[in-house]
């Protein structure tokens, strides 16, 4: 079913590409219309909305702004990235662990503005210390990072940071920035590619978006929101800072933190930034739980 929808996306896209006037002056704008119109096919199968001014000539598809993609479109993009990431690192084969992480993650996500998303959490098979988020509510923690955790509040802190990336659409913004340029280049080169190539234009190849750096400000924002969500969920607020403390002790030249340190500000800088933001705002927060006793420990 899912596959069919993706196919629909491709054919819609191809069709839209074919009818696009090649001599469009503002290529970027025109291509935005293409991607958008094409993607809208997935959700526009039943109701036919009237075309907006930017719609492709001769097409009855609703124009769709990537500035505010539909919930379904966002989930589709995230699911594709998540599937690719799982292609590189599968889930740790431990149903109890995966269920536990989904329980904690779901409860924390309930405290955000996007509680409506079909949140999915997973621990993936990698010795690296890292965590990833993809649009639409996909969140992954590596086995290496999970091993650093000591209690449920810390897990909640890590998941909260990633949940914040999803809530603020940080990765979607990154995709948007690069996508138009990439498609522009491909268009000038050879007009139309295969289905696979076109999909890569949208999300990049594989899960490369997971290896891309966000703005430092986006990371700091996710830290602040992460601490906030942890507090809202009733946990001890310092779960995330404690994990940052632990990661900060890892040497920069250790390979298991190479990607994390490359794509994120150093934990020390993140702690200082958090400190500036927190001030005495957490002093009144009482009764937060750590839940070290219920924390699911990995088998050695």
């Amino acid at each position, binding site marked *: 079913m899912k596959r069919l929808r993706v196919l629909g996306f491709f054919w819609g896209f191809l069709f839209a590409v074919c009818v696009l006037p090649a001599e469009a002056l503002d290529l970027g704008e025109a291509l935005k219309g293409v991607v958008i119109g094409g993607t809208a096919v997935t959700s526009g199968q039943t109701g036919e909305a009237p075309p907006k001014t930017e719609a492709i000539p001769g097409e009855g598809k609703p124009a769709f702004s990537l500035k505010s993609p539909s919930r379904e479109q966002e989930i589709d993009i995230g699911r594709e990235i998540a599937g*690719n990431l799982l292609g590189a690192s599968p889930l740790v084969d431990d149903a109890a662990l*995966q269920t536990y992480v*989904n329980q904690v993650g779901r409860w924390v996500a309930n405290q955000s503005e996007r509680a409506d998303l079909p949140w999915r959490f997973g621990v993936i098979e990698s010795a690296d210390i890292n965590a990833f988020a993809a649009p639409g509510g996909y969140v992954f923690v590596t086995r290496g990072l999970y091993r650093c955790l000591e209690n449920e509040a810390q897990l909640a802190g890590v998941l909260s940071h990633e949940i914040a990336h999803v809530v603020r659409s940080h990765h979607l913004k990154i995709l948007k920035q690069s996508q138009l340029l990439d498609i522009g280049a491909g268009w000038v080169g050879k007009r139309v590619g295969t289905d696979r190539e076109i999909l890569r234009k949208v999300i990049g190849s594989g899960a490369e978006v997971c290896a891309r750096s966000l703005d430092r400000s986006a990371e700091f924002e996710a830290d602040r929101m992460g601490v906030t969500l942890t507090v809202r969920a009733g946990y001890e*607020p310092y779960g995330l800072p404690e994990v940052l403390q632990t990661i900060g002790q890892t040497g920069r030249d250790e390979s298991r933190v190479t990607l994390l340190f490359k794509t994120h500000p150093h934990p020390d800088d993140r702690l200082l930034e958090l*400190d500036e933001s927190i001030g005495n705002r957490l002093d009144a927060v009482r009764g937060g739980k750590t839940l070290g006793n219920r924390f699911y420990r990995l088998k050695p």
Partner: protein
Amino acid sequence: MKIHAFLLTVLLAVPLLPGMCRAAETGRALKADVLRSAPYSDARKTGVIVRGETLQILTKKGAWLNVKNGKRASGWVRLLSVRRGTAGSGSTSKGVLDVASGRAGTGTIVATTGVRGLNEEELKGARYNAAEVKKLDGYAQTPRQGEQFARRGGLRAVKFAYLPEPKQKGGRR
């Protein structure tokens, strides 16, 4: 008589041992801050810490650490002003924080046989794995299930506004 005194000393000392063990943790000041007599921001000032100096961490209480800096002073300081542990080669900063951090890359590496890391090339070349996505779906929880799970752990939702962006940019850039 002498033996009794000895035994008494040993018996009295034993309960203190765990506390002494914990006192071995050290940390480093991430920034200059004030030491206070109690873990509250309005408690009496007992001293200061200087950025980069090594601290002995005695205990932790909520957002506060009870620390001692050598012979000079002891007191409570905010958790976020201190980086726990002495390992690591520090951040982008140069100078005092980089001193005495030559331990990077040794000691803490765990056995990782058979488990890969994730580098950019691997991520770029990754292929969609439908079976794993299906498994992932199978573990998903509904909002209601999340609530039930929280209740079992005694967690209660708290109203709390998002923390603001700091006005004055902290940290080393």
